[in-house]
């Protein structure tokens, strides 16, 4: 990992188009501003990781689970009627 020290107000350029600026430092919280082209997706790491994990859990549901799910769905629908 490349490690750089920056002060408040200083920034880093990545590949011409992405600029990361340190806006403020308060205790152990650092506020960061990111300017990037629109097609670049930016996420908080833990949010992205939780979506990756949810997707992996959801991938290719097993047939018996789908069947149980379908039965429950039908039962709740009938109950509503």
């Amino acid at each position: 990992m490349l490690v750089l020290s920056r002060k408040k107000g200083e920034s880093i350029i990545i590949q011409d188009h992405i600029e990361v600026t340190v806006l403020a430092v308060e205790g152990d919280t650092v506020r960061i501003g990111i300017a990037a082209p629109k097609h670049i997706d930016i996420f908080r790491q833990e949010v992205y990781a939780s979506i990756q994990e949810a997707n992996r859990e959801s991938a290719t549901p097993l047939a018996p689970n789908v069947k149980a799910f379908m039965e429950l769905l039908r039962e709740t629908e009938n109950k509503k009627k």
Partner: protein
Amino acid sequence: MWGEIDVRDENVYRFSKGLPGFDEETEFALIPWEDTPFIYLQSTKEPELSFLLVSPFVFTPDYSFELPEADRTELEISEEVTVYSIVTIQAEVSKSTMNLLAPVVLNPSKRIGKQVVLHQSSYATRHEIWPAGDTNSVKGGV
């Protein structure tokens, strides 16, 4: 999981960035589960990869979010837009969830799709489809 099936072109969508955790999967077919609000998202490249999707509004009628400008541009959305949530069938089926934080947004006229991650949102990746209590009497045999 289907053996071999024919899918009409109009149901094949390009996901240029894949899905988080499945970056390589850039093309999916939509396969409706008839008579239900559910639909399968089946990779066209990887037969063993599919997701169960649901229209989130069926179970959470007040679900709403603003599609960020950048995503709208990327999806080339002018008018038509379709929203689905990915379903996670849990071991205890009645506790199954859907991902409201990262909806699958589709542009049906251009046939492009993206799993959009909502920022500044309090929606969860695991939102219970049937909130606690909804199915209790059913489990008792009615």
